[in-house]
């Protein structure tokens, strides 16, 4: 399967590529209860890239959750 670059995955998930946005992704990812938590440092390190790939695979499901929070439910 062709892998999308991490920056594109971030954008597809609704984040920008700035350190602040990467930190926001890392915090949101940790709330999903992964086996290993990400360090919150705002950098696209190896663990964050792996987490991005996982979250990108789940993007359709995550969009359902995002719809919910946008609706204030």
């Amino acid at each position, binding site marked *: 399967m062709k892998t999308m670059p991490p920056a594109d995955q971030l954008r597809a998930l609704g984040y920008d590529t700035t350190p602040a946005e990467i930190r926001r992704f890392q915090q949101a990812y940790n709330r999903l*209860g992964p086996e290993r938590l990400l360090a919150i440092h705002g950098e696209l390190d190896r663990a964050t890239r792996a987490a991005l*790939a*996982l979250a990108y695979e789940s993007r*359709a499901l995550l969009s*359902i959750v995002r*719809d*919910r929070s946008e609706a204030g439910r």
Partner: protein
Amino acid sequence: MANQAIQAPQLTLVPPSSESTPTTTADAKAEPTEERSTIAKVGIGAGATLGLGLLGLGIYRLGMWAGWWGASGIVIDDPIRPDTQPDDAKPDTKPKPNDGGGGGSRGRASGKPPNSSGDPEGYNTELYPSPAPVRLGLKLVGYPVPYSSETLNPNSKANADVTRFQREWNRVIQGIDSGSVKLPSSPPEPKWVERLRGTLDTDGIAGKNTLNALEIAVANHARNLNWRDLVKQAGA
């Protein structure tokens, strides 16, 4: 001639008693008016009681159909349930796009959960391209699987959390049918509430039917209701 007409209902409606049955033609002629009156009263009484009973039953059934007795839009009462075969007797191979499992008068605990996406693969491949979103879906509705890319069923081994979801799904669906689980009457997205139907094998395998059920549980949890509340109501 008159006596024949009188005696006919005595034979068909009321069993003759030894006291009132005339033993001779003379006896029959001697008390014609009183016999006729008693039999007629009993016959009319029985007929009126039967008629009232049937009328009452008819009104009750009409009320059930029309929702006069406070029933919600949930289908919980249908004695005609021809599809009662075991879970895996019928493979879920035919996609039913957006059918919501049908809106007819059948109970919900029959057949399999609908394939909401209509994906020809038999489940939503866009939502579940890999094990990660399956795990995430389970987590979102309260099953503590780790969020990772690992399969839930290595070597086709049953997963305890998947089994628990399958069991609780079945309890919720059966609870809707029995009335112990209450669904919102005006949910934001009623189509997902309608799709709460069908039962699962409790085999711990995250197969197509289970993924379809999980999609419905997650969508409802995100938009209409809390899955854990339904499970609690079902007593699962």
